[in-house]
């Protein structure tokens, strides 16, 4: 029976998500014009749903103090209170309102993850494309450097850097971005290597195009798809990295709420079937799925497939 119930609720959730996606697409199409409108019209429901979720997260993150019923760090009562009208999602291990923590967590976690991923992609893909386009000693130096950085296990490496440079949010972003950038570099380089030997690149070179123009006009558009796909996942890996680091005591400083640490703090409850840790984990999962649905759509558009 319980299996049937689960299937029923999953079906309800899927239908609801599609309906929301459809509504959002309708509203978005109505509100936009020109190029964007044409693009939105063709957006699949999954992508529309993804955009809606991302929009909600952004709104929640921006207006966290207005939305959250309590302050981020305020102890409002006993610990692990059940769900009720005053505390819609109960309280956490110290008696803070869970809903408020989740709302503030959106601001801290999404903000940091976005900054880190953007930084990692900017640095990693630019250097990767550059290495592939120039080749020769530059490629060798950069590749070997990245090899060395990547050959040191990431967790140990970041722990080391954070211990040496301190654990402010800025260093956290820089350290995770550096480590992520090495992964992006390798992917970008290996994709671009296949492109630089193409005839049209040869032609562009003969036309006398400059290096930067070559990279951004000729190589990047053709390497974009795997990079975009990677972006969707790297984004989520940042949450996990922060969670792992907070396990070692070098993550975001308390009492700042972040989803990764919130999963960590309540994780043991899951072994007794308690859903508390699923809330922050679910928040991460929903965002990851949403981002990647949008990425899939863009990927499809970039591929030029018409179906």
């Amino acid at each position, binding site marked *: 029976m319980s299996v049937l119930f689960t299937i029923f609720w999953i079906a309800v959730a899927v239908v609801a998500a599609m309906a929301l996606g459809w509504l959002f697409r309708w509203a978005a199409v109505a509100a936009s014009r020109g190029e964007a409108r044409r693009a939105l019209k063709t957006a699949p429901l999954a992508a529309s749903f993804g955009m809606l979720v991302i929009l909600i997260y952004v709104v929640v993150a921006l207006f966290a103090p207005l939305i959250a019923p309590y302050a981020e760090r305020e102890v409002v009562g006993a610990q692990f209170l059940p769900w009720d009208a005053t505390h819609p999602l109960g309280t956490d291990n110290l008696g803070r309102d869970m809903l408020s923590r989740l709302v503030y967590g959106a601001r801290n976690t999404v903000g940091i993850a976005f900054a880190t991923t953007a930084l990692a992609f900017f640095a990693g893909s630019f250097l990767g494309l550059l290495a592939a386009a120039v080749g020769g000693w530059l490629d060798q130096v950069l590749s070997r450097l990245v090899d*060395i950085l990547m050959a040191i296990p990431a967790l140990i490496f970041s722990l080391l850097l954070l211990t*040496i440079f301190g654990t402010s949010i800025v260093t956290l972003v820089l350290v995770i971005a550096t480590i992520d950038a090495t992964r992006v570099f*390798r*992917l970008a380089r290996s994709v671009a290597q296949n492109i630089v*030997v193409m005839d049209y690149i040869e032609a562009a070179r003969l036309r006398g195009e400059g290096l930067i123009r070559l990279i951004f006009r000729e190589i990047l558009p053709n390497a974009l798809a*795997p990079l975009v796909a990677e972006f969707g996942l790297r984004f989520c890996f940042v949450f996990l990295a922060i969670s792992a680091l907070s396990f070692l005591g070098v993550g975001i400083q308390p009492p700042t709420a972040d989803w990764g640490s919130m999963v*960590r703090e309540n994780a043991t409850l899951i072994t007794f079937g308690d859903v508390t840790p699923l809330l922050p984990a679910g928040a991460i999962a929903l965002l990851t799925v949403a981002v990647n649905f949008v990425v899939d759509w863009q*990927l499809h558009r970039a591929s030029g497939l018409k179906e």
Partner: protein
Amino acid sequence: MSDIWSMIARRLLLGLLTLFVISLIIFGATELLPGDLAQNILGQSATPETVAAFRRELGLDLPAHTRYVNWLLGALQGDFGTSLANKRPIADLIATRLSNTLFLAVYAAALSVPLSLMLGILAALWRNSIFDRAANALALTSISFPEFFVAYILIFVLAQSGLFPSMARMDPTTTFSEALYRTFLPALTLTLVVTAHMMRMTRAAIINLLASPYIEMARLKGMSPARVILKHALPNALAPIVTVVALNLAYLITGVVVVEVVFVYPGLGQLMVDSVAKRDFPVVQAVALIFAAAYVLLNLTADVLSTLSNPRLIHRK
């Protein structure tokens, strides 16, 4: 073809250089980390005299470069020394743990690589279908959960009902089939953790090529979509896929400390973390070099395969 061989030879030499640089970095890093083995073993009980005596005994009072050179000379002769903390030869300390780590990595790879390639190809074939969305949503959800959390959920569902043991203890008498049974949950956890990445890259790389003229051509010839993907798209999409697979295989060897801890599995990850915490430098070095070597070899394999998949790269001008 000879180009490939010379490339492999060159890369292997460079790999050795990489290992050397890493040994320097690891040494420098352990030096930069505050505290040393004497302080860490004594912990709260450390007093200046006992720490000094301890350092004298271990040779930690020698200058840093002397210690590094001594270590390097030993390592070049194949002698990695003994653990500073408990005087056990490093080879002894590492042997069983290394085989445990490799066993789990191969097990998880055998489950995850075919699974993710298959899912990725099917998702590309049936792109934007319910199957595609469902497979993606599931894989993405499992990857969004921290590893230890995936492990807890699996234990809750599969171990508390008694289907599988929650502790993956191994000893010399464990038979192969028993080992497969005992390490099923950690292998499954790792599979869930790495599958999404490889699957999505497979899907993305294939879809990226589907609008190319030669695919269009094949399709116009009346080839079935499945054959188009397998015969034409996949071979050309190999480079990014292989890169990501190599990354994840390296992760299965070097990054599984959390899974080791949750399932009480004696692998290299825990040894590394303990040794870093206690600043047991020779052990840290040895494990770091094993990890680095695994990484260098996997990367080299990935590069060779990517190169082979693109004839233009072999005959690069």
